Each structure stands twice: as structure tokens, then as C-alpha cells.
């Protein structure tokens, strides 16, 4: 419970307040300003997890997004957050965190003992067959691996999206980013500055406060404060902290995720938890900084072994020293600064182990003067200690070989620095390849993406002085490009407190034993990938870095190899005896750090996921027991169930009423398009298979639309309202596609035609009155239309007044019965529907839904485009030769109807099916075969497209396409089912009811 590792003073924490938190059920304390990681270290907690494969104890390695080990579950219940990096979880009072794997005695620790039996590719090799057991294996592996768990309850929180535009987006609020934002902001550009940290300052926050390190004569702290204040005072600048730019997409579009609540324990009622920013920038300055690489040596994963920069961050930003006696291992100068920091904090620095021969610089001299022993031309070979590092063995190295002088140095903290890797991720998201730089020993961004540039450490400018100048210049440059005029003020100036360079690349500490026999040298901590695993991959023939990644799992996981990938690629290059540039990197893809599903979804969840369309009569359907079916975005009544009825009984009742008296369907959802213009008839003649040139005003025609390949894609009725005025209906789901189709042909192929299209789907309510008594119902409601058979023939329409409302009545039928479709202004839809129900009452008028509609139309063999057709059938396949205009010389798709494979024998043709057992309803989509005993793979000759039980017929029936089906009526065909049974059915004509078609003409 005591913060034993907390320094007496220093750090950017609020020592006046002490807050409580729990980790794996134990209580600890920390201060506001801490992260979970810094608070755990302050409390002396060194083991924070168990590794993925070997279950080795692991401690905190980093201090930021690169952390591979301290991956925790925060909170509980619906608010729980899996896979959080403890280094980025801000501490708040009452925080509960846990790791999935047990930290004490570990039953899976056996994996470590027998690790030689768990080589790279182990999971592929062991669990690859048979495939059906994979779900079991995966479950076991996940349990053993201790990954986090997703909340099981629904997410109660609110997330949103913000679309933003700016002149200059600056990613990263370190010195370079601040300088860039300052210059561009002063010039008047609209600037958006985003940083993932709680406060601005970037790497400066990890620097020790001392007299010799100042910017423009002010302390770092002061400079950050005055710069932040200046930016905040500018109306044209917006600063977003706790906001990670996770993805860089095309045309300067970036995704940012802002944490608005997690950092303080979650949102209050009505607040937003995460906000996803969709930023379109005119220019982007990437000032994303660099991440330090650790060095690779034996047992380099022992708790107490960290990166140098992490140690510096804990010391200077959080006032925590993770150990009492440190050994620093480096190949560059930057580590010496931290050695001095440790000394200044009163800690013992037992040694700086430097792989370089006779390093010399002001920093090295300062360390030497401070009395820190420096072992040059040396390396740590291995660490000792089981649950925490206790000592290191060092030796002299020359040209990568051990040359003796072994020595053991006791310590409880090892800080290593293998150099710095610029965060080129965002730069590379849109396809740029990073370029290897031999001098800085790192990958740098390649050529700038259009409208983007980089500044600061990401470009290899590791010194503060240069980063400030470069950021300032880039901020001015992009502002100038956009027409702003940056003043001639000077860049913030700083004496350089010591550089990184010179650096001597050093990828793998030599060992006395072969790679696979010595202590493990970890490259990727999170995936337990070792140098030996990479060597094994190479021995087994892998050469591409992308393949080695997948074979060894290096670079997967929540950290995506931020810490270890460059080391791994360099080791791979060495093993392949090629350069790092030749070896290259794996592909950088969004997201830079994980983002929440909530942020991705934003408000488009639940009922806001997709718009819901309801007809004017929707409330009536709800009140009258309708079950609904989603058709596109529409809610359509599926069937109306009365108390005590089964679904089948309801459908039988609805069918019976419609065939014998009168039924009514809400058909408002059918797509409706008006077509106007002098060339409307010429245009529609090209669109439909049937002729449109000689239609008479007042008449209707059934129409088929084909794609240019000759395949049916939609159907409907065309009514000629006037000389240059048509009204088309489409299927409910096909309305938008049909309108798009008309527009595309008009705009791109025949722009000179005088024709235009208007969607009127929502303007009309459509009530389809079907059945022998439909005429009686209409006559009771309307006295200005003559409904007698010959006065109002089939396939015509009349304008009149129905229930006191101006209406257009079509005499068309989708049931095969006498039928009328009443179309009225949608605002009067409910009124007219109520009137229809009242007028029909003497006849027992029965509302029916889409299921009954389907049974009735299928009994007549009427197709539903998109159900009985699937984009691979022609009008001839469907037996609809009659729908093609005999004298037409061209229409869209016509030429394809004479292509050799369209007129060839053996095409699938539209048929009916009558199951031998009339009670069995064939599943829709079921495959059809001639011989159910045939050897696998069984030749399939067709499939079921529609299938129902018909009370009218007294048996089940189906519609299908079958090879040469039209000449096979009367034959038996089979449908093998997943449960092993086989359904036999007779091939029939697709029209089952009223084959002569007399009923609709009465």
C-alpha cells in the first residue's frame, strides 16, 4: 500500500491528493497525473502480466503506446475496457484494473520449461487439422494466452462522430508539432492540433527540469504553458488532447479518436464517451515523434528491464524511480541523459554498458564526471533473476563477437536503448514505403504524401533545437502554400541538450551458445517471439518479412510491434545476409493504436443504424396484430395473426378470404417513378423488353427490365398517364436501383433525349383490393368511376374520387383475382384504408400481408424479381417470351438474348414443383438433383426459388429453375437435405391455379 518507489519531489503529479485504485483485487494509491503504469511502479509492483506463449512473468517495459506487456482490463460490467495499455490509462479515484492471466503460481508456466517443444509456427503445426476442431483449439489458446474479454452486456454509452475541416492538421503536440501549430496559427490558418496525451509537450514532459535546458530562455514547463495559452487564445486554432490520430486515409482525410470520459472513469449521464473525428485537412503536418527500441539480449524480458526513455518518463514526469540500482545498456548517446537523471534522483547507476568503442561527447563526459562507470565496447549478454532482474552478465564485444572479460553486475533495474524508431505509421498508411537511413539507423518517412509533410523526430531530427526549427518552418511553409502570410518571427530556440547520434546499430547481443539453446532473447514481448524463432523461420525457408511476421507472430497483437518490429526486421536481415533496406518493413495499417467499436459506430446504432420507412397505414397494421417483415428499409405487414392462430392458420385464412371474397394489401411500398418528356416513350422503349411506342393513354403494361447482359433485374407495371407522361412501378427493394438505372442511361448514353424522372414512392399510398368481391367494395366507395367489366377493362386505370379523396385506380392484379389498386395522396392513405375496411365489412374483407401475397402470386406462377430471378436468368429462361416486343429492333439487353450461350440447350428453366408428400414444404434455396445416390460432388441441376404451403391447392408447392425443366414436366426430381433426408418432387408447370387466367378478367 505504500508508494515505496515514489521520489520525494518532482514529476507532473498532484501530490496534494491521494487517490485509490485496485489492481488484480489489491488496493493501491497514487496521485492525479499518474498513469496506471506509473502508479503501479510507484507501489513497487513489478509483475503485471504473463506472456502469451511461455507464461513468463512480465513487467512494464515502456511508458506510452509501445507498451507490450502491461495490457489490462479496466472496469467491469458493461463499461469494461479490454486490452488497455497501463501506460496510457490515466489514474482516477476508484479505478479497477486486472490482468487476465494469474500472476502468482502459473499452471501454464510449464510451457516455459518445455519451450523447445513450442517453436515458431507451433500453433500452425499442431492445431491445423482437422479444421472442424479449430473453434475448440482457438478457445483453449485464447484462455491460455490471457487476452482480455469484451463486455457481455449492451453498451449503455453514447459515442459520436464529428466531421471537421481545417487548413492545417498537426498530429502530435511535442516540440515540433507545437512550433508548427504556432506558426500556422499565427499566420491565420485554421489549425487543428491533436495529441494522444492528456497534456501537450510530448517528449519534453519526460525531460528533467534543470537550468541548462531552456527554450527561448524559459523552462520547458513555462514554454509549454505559454505556447498552449497562445494557441488556446487563437480563435482559428483548436487543440484536442487525449486524441489519437489513428488512421491516415486518402486525400488528406484522417481519423482521430478523442477520449472524452474514460480517463476520469466514464461518462456522466448524457455525456459522450468517445468521439471519432473525421478530419479533411488541406495540409497535414505529421509530428508524430519517435519510439525508443530496446536492445535484445538473453532474458531481456525479466521484470525490471525497460527502455531508457521509459525510465526517464517515470522519473521526470511521474516522480517514480522503478529501481534503486540501475544498469544502462546503450548504443547511442541519449541514454546518458537518463543516467544523469537517475544520479540526480539519488539512485545508484552501477554501470553504463555501451556497445560503442570509446564513446565521447559532452554527455558521456558528464556521466563520467558524475562517477558513473562506463563499460565501452561491451554488451549485456544475459539477465539473471526469475521474478525480477537481480544482475546482468556483461562482456566485451568486437564486431558482434564476444571477446571475453565477463563480469556480473548486481542491479534491480536495466534500462536499454537501441536507438529511436520514427513513428512513420501514419505516413505509411496510404501506401508510402519508409526509407532506411544508415546514419540515424532507422526508417524515415519516404517522399511526402500529397498535401502532407513531417517535422521533428519522425524525420530523424532527434535534437530539440532542430525539431523546433523544423516544426516552425513546416508550419510556415504549409500556411504559405495555402495563401496565408506567416510573419518573420523566429523559431523557438533551444540549446541542444545532447543528441542521439552517433549511434552504432546493434541488433542482437552475442551469446556463448547457439540461438535456440541460450537464454531466450525476446524480440516481440507480446507474442513471445524470440531471435531464435526468426532464425527458425529462416531455416524453414521464409524470406519475406511479411511471411516471417505471420509465421512467428512478430508484430501482431495490441501493440502491433511498435517496440520490437524494427529489431526483428534487422535480425531477419542479418540472418538472410542482406541489408535492412532490402528486407523492408511489414505494412503499416490503421489503426495506430486500437480504437473502440463504439467510436466506429458513433450514433449509427440500434434504431439509428438504418432509417425505417413506414407506410401511411402503419399504425393500423400495428393495432390489428400485424407481424412485420423488413423489405429494404420498409416495414411491411407479413401476416395478421388472430388470437389462437398459428402463422400457417393466419395465412390460410387470408388466402381463403382473398380467393373467395375480398382481401386487402398495403402495397404503398412498391417503387413508383414518374417519367416526363417528349422522348419518354422512346426512352422507355429502350428500357423495357416490351413495346412502349404504341401504348394508349389510360392503359397499363407489364414490363421487364434487363441488364445489358440480357438478365432480368426488375419488373413492374407501366401506366401511360398522358402523351409524354408515364408512371412506373418497381419492386419494393429495387426502387432506388431502377431509378439509378434510368438516370444512368439518360445522363451518360442519351443525354439529348428530353426525359426526366421523379421518384413518387413516398407521395402515394397504394391499397390493393383483391378478390371476387373487390368490385363491390370499390363501387360502395366511389361513384364517379364505372367499374363494370367492359367499362373498366383489365390493365387500364381510371381517375376518380374514392372515399371523398382524389384517387387513381388501376385494374391490375398480382393474385390472379379480380383486383383494383387504389392510389391516393399518402396523407389520405389511412383515411381511405379505413373507408375500404368499412365498405368491405359486409364481405368479410381481410387484410393480408406479404406472406399471403407470396402464396397467392406463386400459385399463379407470377415471379418476384430478385427472388425467382437471381441475375442469371433471361426472359426466355423464365418462359416470358410474351413479354418481349416482337417487332422491336433494340432494347437494353436485347442483343445478349441471341448470344450463343443464351440460346444454347441445357439452360435452367422456370418450373413448378409439387412435393410427393404434399405436407412437406421444400426449403427455399434447396439444390435439386436427378440422382440423390450419385457420387459426390453430386451434379446439381437447379434450385428452389419460392416455396409455400397452399391451402387452396391442398398441398405444398414450389417454384424453381431446373436444367431443361420446361421439357421435363411430370418427371421426379430430388432435393437432398442437410439432415440426410431426400425430398422428392414432381416437375410441373409454374402456374398452379386458374391456369387459363380467367378470374382476373371477370
Amino acid at each position, binding site marked *: 500500500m505504500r508508494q515505496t518507489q515514489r521520489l520525494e519531489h518532482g514529476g507532473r503529479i498532484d501530490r496534494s491528493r491521494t487517490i485509490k485504485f485496485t489492481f488484480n483485487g489489491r488496493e493501491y494509491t497514487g496521485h492525479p497525473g499518474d498513469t496506471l503504469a506509473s502508479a503501479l511502479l510507484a507501489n513497487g509492483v513489478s509483475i503485471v502480466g504473463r506472456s502469451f506463449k511461455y507464461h513468463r512473468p512480465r513487467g512494464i517495459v515502456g511508458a506510452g503506446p509501445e507498451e507490450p506487456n502491461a495490457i489490462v482490463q479496466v472496469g467491469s460490467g458493461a463499461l469494461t475496457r479490454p486490452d488497455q495499455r497501463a501506460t496510457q490509462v490515466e489514474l482516477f479515484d476508484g479505478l479497477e484494473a486486472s490482468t487476465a492471466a494469474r500472476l502468482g503460481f502459473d499452471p501454464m508456466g510449464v510451457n516455459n520449461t518445455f519451450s523447445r517443444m513450442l517453436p515458431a509456427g507451433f500453433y500452425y503445426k499442431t492445431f491445423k487439422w482437422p479444421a472442424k476442431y479449430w473453434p475448440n483449439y482457438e478457445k483453449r489458446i485464447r484462455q491460455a494466452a490471457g487476452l482480455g474479454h469484451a463486455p457481455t452486456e449492451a453498451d449503455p454509452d453514447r459515442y459520436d462522430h464529428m466531421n471537421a475541416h481545417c487548413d492545417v492538421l498537426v498530429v502530435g503536440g511535442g516540440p515540433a508539432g507545437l512550433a508548427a501549430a504556432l506558426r500556422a496559427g499565427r499566420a491565420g490558418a485554421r489549425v487543428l492540433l491533436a495529441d494522444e496525451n492528456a497534456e501537450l509537450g510530448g517528449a519534453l514532459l519526460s525531460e528533467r527540469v534543470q537550468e541548462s535546458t531552456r527554450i527561448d530562455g524559459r523552462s520547458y514547463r513555462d514554454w509549454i504553458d505559454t505556447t498552449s495559452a497562445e494557441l488556446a487564445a487563437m480563435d482559428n486554432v483548436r487543440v484536442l488532447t487525449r486524441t489519437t490520430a489513428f488512421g491516415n*486515409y*486518402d*486525400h*488528406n*482525410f484522417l481519423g482521430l479518436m478523442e477520449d472524452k470520459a474514460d480517463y476520469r472513469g466514464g461518462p456522466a449521464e448524457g455525456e459522450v464517451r468517445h468521439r471519432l473525428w*473525421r478530419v*479533411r485537412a488541406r495540409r497535414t503536418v505529421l509530428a508524430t515523434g519517435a519510439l525508443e527500441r530496446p536492445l535484445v539480449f538473453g532474458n531481456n524480458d525479466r521484470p525490471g528491464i525497460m527502455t531508457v526513455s521509459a525510465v526517464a518518463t517515470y522519473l521526470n514526469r511521474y516522480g517514480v524511480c522503478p529501481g534503486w540500482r540501475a544498469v544502462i545498456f546503450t548504443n547511442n548517446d541519449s541514454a546518458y541523459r537518463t543516467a544523469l537523471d537517475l544520479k540526480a534522483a539519488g539512485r545508484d547507476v552501477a554501470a553504463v554498458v555501451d556497445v560503442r568503442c570509446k564513446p565521447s561527447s559532452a554527455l558521456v563526459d558528464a556521466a563520467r564526471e558524475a562517477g558513473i562507470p562506463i563499460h565501452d565496447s561491451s554488451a549485456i549478454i544475459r539477465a539473471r533473476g526469475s521474478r525480477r532482474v537481480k544482475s546482468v552478465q556483461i562482456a566485451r564485444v568486437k564486431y558482434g563477437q564476444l571477446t571475453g572479460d565477463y563480469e556480473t553486475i548486481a542491479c534491480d533495474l536495466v534500462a536499454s536503448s537501441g536507438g529511436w524508431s520514427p513513428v512513420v505509421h501514419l505516413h505509411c498508411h*496510404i*501506401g508510402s514505403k519508409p526509407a532506411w537511413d544508415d546514419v540515424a539507423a532507422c526508417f524515415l518517412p519516404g517522399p511526402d504524401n*500529397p498535401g502532407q509533410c513531417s517535422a521533428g523526430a519522425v524525420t530523424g531530427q532527434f535534437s530539440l533545437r532542430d525539431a523546433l526549427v523544423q516544426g516552425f518552418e513546416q508550419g510556415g511553409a504549409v500556411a504559405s502554400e495555402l495563401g496565408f502570410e506567416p510573419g518573420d518571427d523566429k523559431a523557438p530556440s533551444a540549446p541542444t541538450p545532447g543528441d542521439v547520434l552517433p549511434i552504432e546499430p546493434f541488433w542482437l547481443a552475442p551469446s556463448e551458445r547457439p540461438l535456440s539453446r541460450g537464454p531466450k532473447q525476446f524480440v516481440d514481448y507480446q507474442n513471445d517471439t524470440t531471435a531464435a524463432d526468426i532464425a527458425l523461420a529462416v531455416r524453414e525457408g521464409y524470406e519475406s518479412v511479411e511471411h516471417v511476421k505471420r509465421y512467428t507472430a512478430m508484430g501482431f497483437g495490441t501493440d502491433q510491434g511498435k517496440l520490437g518490429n524494427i529489431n526483428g526486421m534487422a535480425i531477419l536481415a542479418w540472418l538472410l545476409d542482406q541489408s535492412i533496406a532490402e528486407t523492408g518493413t511489414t505494412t503499416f495499417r490503421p489503426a495506430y493504436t486500437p480504437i473502440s467499436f463504439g467510436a466506429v459506430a458513433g450514433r449509427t446504432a440500434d434504431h439509428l443504424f438504418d432509417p425505417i420507412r413506414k407506410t401511411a397505414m402503419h399504425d393500423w397494421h400495428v393495432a390489428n396484430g400485424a407481424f412485420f417483415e423488413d423489405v429494404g428499409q420498409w416495414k411491411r405487414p407479413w401476416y395478421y395473426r388472430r388470437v389462437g392462430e398459428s402463422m400457417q392458420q393466419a395465412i390460410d385464412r387470408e388466402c381463403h378470404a382473398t380467393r373467395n371474397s375480398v382481401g386487402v394489401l398495403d402495397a404503398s411500398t412498391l417503387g413508383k417513378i414518374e417519367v416526363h418528356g417528349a422522348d419518354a416513350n422512346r426512352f422507355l422503349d429502350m428500357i423495357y423488353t416490351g413495346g412502349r411506342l404504341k401504348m394508349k393513354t389510360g392503359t397499363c403494361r407489364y414490363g421487364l427490365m434487363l441488364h*445489358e*447482359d440480357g438478365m432480368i433485374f426488375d419488373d413492374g407495371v407501366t401506366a401511360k398517364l398522358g402523351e409524354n407522361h408515364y408512371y412506373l412501378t418497381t419492386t419494393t427493394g429495387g426502387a432506388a436501383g431502377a431509378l*439509378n438505372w434510368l*438516370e*444512368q442511361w439518360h*445522363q*451518360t*448514353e442519351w*443525354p439529348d433525349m428530353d426525359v426526366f424522372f421523379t421518384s413518387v414512392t413516398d407521395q402515394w399510398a397504394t391499397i390493393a383490393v383483391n378478390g371476387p368481391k373487390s368490385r363491390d367494395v370499390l363501387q360502395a366507395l366511389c361513384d364517379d368511376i364505372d367499374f363494370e367489366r367492359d367499362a373498366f377493362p383489365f390493365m387500364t386505370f381510371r381517375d376518380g374520387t374514392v372515399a371523398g379523396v382524389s384517387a387513381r385506380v388501376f385494374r391490375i392484379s398480382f393474385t390472379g383475382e379480380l383486383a383494383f389498386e387504389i392510389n391516393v395522396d399518402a396523407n389520405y392513405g389511412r383515411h381511405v384504408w379505413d373507408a375500404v375496411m368499412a365498405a368491405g365489412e359486409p364481405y368479410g374483407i381481410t387484410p393480408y400481408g406479404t406472406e399471403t401475397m407470396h402464396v397467392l402470386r406463386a400459385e399463379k406462377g407470377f415471379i418476384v424479381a430478385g427472388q425467382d430471378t437471381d441475375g442469371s436468368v433471361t426472359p426466355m429462361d423464365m418462359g416470358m417470351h410474351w413479354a418481349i416486343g416482337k417487332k422491336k*429492333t*433494340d432494347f437494353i439487353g*436485347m*442483343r*445478349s438474348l441471341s*448470344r*450463343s450461350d443464351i440460346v444454347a440447350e441445357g439452360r435452367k428453366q422456370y418450373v413448378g414443383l409439387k412435393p410427393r408428400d404434399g405436407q412437406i414444404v421444400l426449403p427455399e434455396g434447396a439444390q435439386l438433383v436427378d440422382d440423390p445416390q450419385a457420387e459426390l460432388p453430386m451434379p446439381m441441376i437447379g434450385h428452389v426459388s419460392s416455396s409455400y404451403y397452399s391451402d387452396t391447392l391442398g398441398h405444398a408447392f414450389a417454384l424453381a429453375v431446373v436444367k431443361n425443366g420446361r421439357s421435363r414436366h411430370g418427371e421426379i426430381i430430388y432435393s437432398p437435405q442437410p439432415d440426410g433426408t431426400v425430398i422428392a418432387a414432381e416437375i410441373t408447370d409454374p402456374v398452379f391455379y386458374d391456369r387459363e387466367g380467367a378470374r382476373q378478367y371477370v
Partner: protein
Amino acid sequence: MFQIDCPWCGPRDQSEFAYAGEGGIKRPEDPSALTDAEWADYLFMRQNPRGRHHEQWRHVHGCGQFFDVVRQTVTYRIESVDLPGRPALANASGEVR
């Protein structure tokens, strides 16, 4: 996500648009005069270039207009937008590449 400069509305996000196939494909005047192979060429064969691509887009959640775009399929840079069938950078024969 691309930013596409609709000739009628100005620059808008790609999410407002729908891709509408390769541009500059003219429907034959008299399809019945074509052989099956010639018709299949019109119907099925597309350029799919690595480089400059002449394509059509529709501002489906905007003005509803179709227009032509010349776009680099490697860099995704949009070189031009124009009315259907008239890409600004097409040469006299209508060839883009």
C-alpha cells in the same frame, strides 16, 4: 476516403458518391450488327489499368448527376472531373491512356 470534386457541387467526401463503372464506353449504334465477340467486348471487357483510369461516378447523395473522372489507380490522385463522355484529359479519340 477520397475527396471528389463534383462538377456541379464542388468537393465532397467519397461517401456521397457511388462508383458507376468505367467511363467512355459508348453503346454500339446497332447492336444487332455486331458479332458475339464484338458484343462481348462491349459488354464485359474493361481496362482495369495500373495507372490512369477513366471512370464514372454518381453524386448519389447530392445532385444525382453522373460524371467522368480520370484517376490514378496507384496513387488515387484524381486528375480531372468532367461531364459524361468528356474527360478533360482524354485525347481526341477518347482514349485516356
